[in-house]
């Protein structure tokens, strides 16, 4: 799998080897008793389904008839589906918009917040608050805010500054950006907290040294803070891309993929294949598309870490 996985496995192995083993008992049975819940739960609900999804992707399976081996047929049918291209480009579009709108905001917020000397807790609590709101509640609430009539919440606010009204979710051009706005609101707080922790780990001596060299505040941010955050910035970027490529709840509840499939994402398509098929679930196609997405993410992550390794490990 990807190189960070391998590296972490190695790290875990190393630590285990170094510490002397404690003989608690010679009774293997009690060890097994403690392992049992994990083995059962992971076996049935994690390891087995992972293997099963690989098998299902090369089978025609619909719960009714016995599964038959069809080779790569499911993959071919997914790729041939005209909605497949649409879903992929929509998901990529969402990821790109979320990157442009959603990626810089937490960083700027965290840098500003880390310089406060009073009410630090208040700032971070406010930034984090939307994260704990259940996604379904935020979507239903924002759906009301996005009301396209001139008396909708956002359109009223736009009216105060002489803009709008915008069609928000009802137009294929503005639907996706609207969803990105809500998703950014709901997710930014978590990233702010990660950056705040990382900002604290920047060695203070570096700032002192930069000042001795006559650096201004902006120069310190540009030449000390951001380079020191590189590692974290790379990780949050890839985590965000992985998360945005699995977008489901927002388009599912906001628009159901509409208008005119403008917000149909890959996950929504998988859901359609498996659970909203009038001919019974096509689980093979759903599994094939899931595996294609997972494989893409795996390869993308591996390449990404290979490319950024030389920049991110020197700190």
């Amino acid at each position, binding site marked *: 799998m990807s190189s960070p*996985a391998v590296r972490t496995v190695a790290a875990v192995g190393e630590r285990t080897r170094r510490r002397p083993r404690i003989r608690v008992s010679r009774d293997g049975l*009690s060890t097994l008793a403690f392992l049992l819940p994990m083995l059962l739960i992971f076996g049935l*609900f994690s390891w087995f389904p992972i293997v099963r999804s690989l098998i299902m992707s090369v089978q025609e399976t619909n719960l009714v008839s016995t599964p038959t081996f069809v080779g790569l047929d499911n993959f071919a049918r997914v790729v041939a589906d005209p909605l497949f291209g649409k879903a992929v480009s929509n998901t990529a579009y969402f990821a790109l918009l979320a990157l442009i709108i959603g990626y810089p905001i937490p960083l700027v917020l965290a840098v500003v917040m880390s310089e406060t000397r009073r009410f630090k807790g208040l700032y971070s609590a406010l930034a984090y608050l939307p994260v704990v709101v259940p996604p379904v509640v935020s979507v239903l609430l924002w759906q009301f805010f996005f009301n396209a009539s001139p008396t909708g919440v956002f359109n009223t606010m736009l009216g105060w500054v002489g803009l709008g009204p915008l069609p928000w979710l009802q137009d294929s051009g503005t639907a996706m950006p609207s969803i990105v706005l809500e998703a950014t609101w709901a997710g930014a707080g978590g990233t702010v907290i990660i950056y705040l*922790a990382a900002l604290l780990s920047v060695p203070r001596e570096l700032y002192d040294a930069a000042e001795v060299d006559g650096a201004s505040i902006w120069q310190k941010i540009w030449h000390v803070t951001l380079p020191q955050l590189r590692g974290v910035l790379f990780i949050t970027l890839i985590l965000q891309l992985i998360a945005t490529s699995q977008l489901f709840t927002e388009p599912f509840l906001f628009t159901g993929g509409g208008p005119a499939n403008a917000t149909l994402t890959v996950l929504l398509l998988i859901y359609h294949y498996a*659970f909203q098929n009038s001919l019974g679930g096509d689980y093979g196609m759903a599994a094939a598309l*899931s595996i294609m997405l997972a494989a893409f993410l795996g390869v993308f992550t591996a390449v990404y870490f290979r490319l950024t390794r030389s920049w991110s490990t020197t*700190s």
Partner: protein
Amino acid sequence: MKLRGSTRRRRSALPTGRGIISDSELHRPRVRWTLRLIHGVTLILLLIIGLGPLLWLAKSSITPTQDTIRTPMSLWPHGFDLGTFARAWSQTHIDRYFLNTVWIAVGSWFVQILVATTGGYALSVLRPRFARVLTALVLATLFVPSIVLLVPLYLTIVDVPFLHMKLINSFWAVWLPAGASAFNVLLMKRFFDNLPREVFEAAQVDGAGPFRLFWSIVVPMSRPIIGVVSVFAVIGQWKDYLWPLLVLPDPNNQPLSVRLPTLQPTTQLDVFLAALAIATLIPIVLFLVFQRMFLKGGDLSGAVKG
């Protein structure tokens, strides 16, 4: 890895108060006032964006429907009506869905804690010969996107292999898969790894067996991490939507998150907004009570995910 190291450095860096801007720079009036301005604007923006929608929800849930539709942003509507909460609670049967949510969250919490503590204990303290392989297998699942599991896991719930049980419409369908959290197991294992081995040895000399050691030594010493995992387990379950939607098709068993979207078309707006407010209450209260856990947890999750 990299982040793990930074956690350690962070503690030593904490006492020195300065950040990017030095004290001498702060004494310059221009810097001081610009900074105050930026902080003031940020605070106001955070209040509007972070707290605003929730305050709006609180206000509108007790505002007559017509006012909310016609002038959603007015501060003083024509009268308030606290009865919406009572109507949402009893007439729309939010009480039932609320209890379902609580019950689902409690069960998932129990399974998650059981699997994570016993599994972490076995892998970290008892350490059988194949512990390293098992740890690697658990770790590997972290790298599989959850979407890969969706369909096969659903089919597993429809017909549990070897046992041949159908768990659809049963809370077990949510409880049991929740336990398969590699994040929890590894977090617990890492915490147990750092407990002082001398205490275990002393307990052994006093004749404690593996069960006694687990229950009387390891669990009490691990209260902080069990608390963290518990709070995140409950909030995570409260927020979950897709999975309970798939495995609990019977409305009588569905949690709030699944029920709310289907209630929307048939419920009056003020009552519906009251229902939304009720669904948000518990996570917000948990967050306010356990704030430190959430706001310090950032680097924790980052370290394992990375």
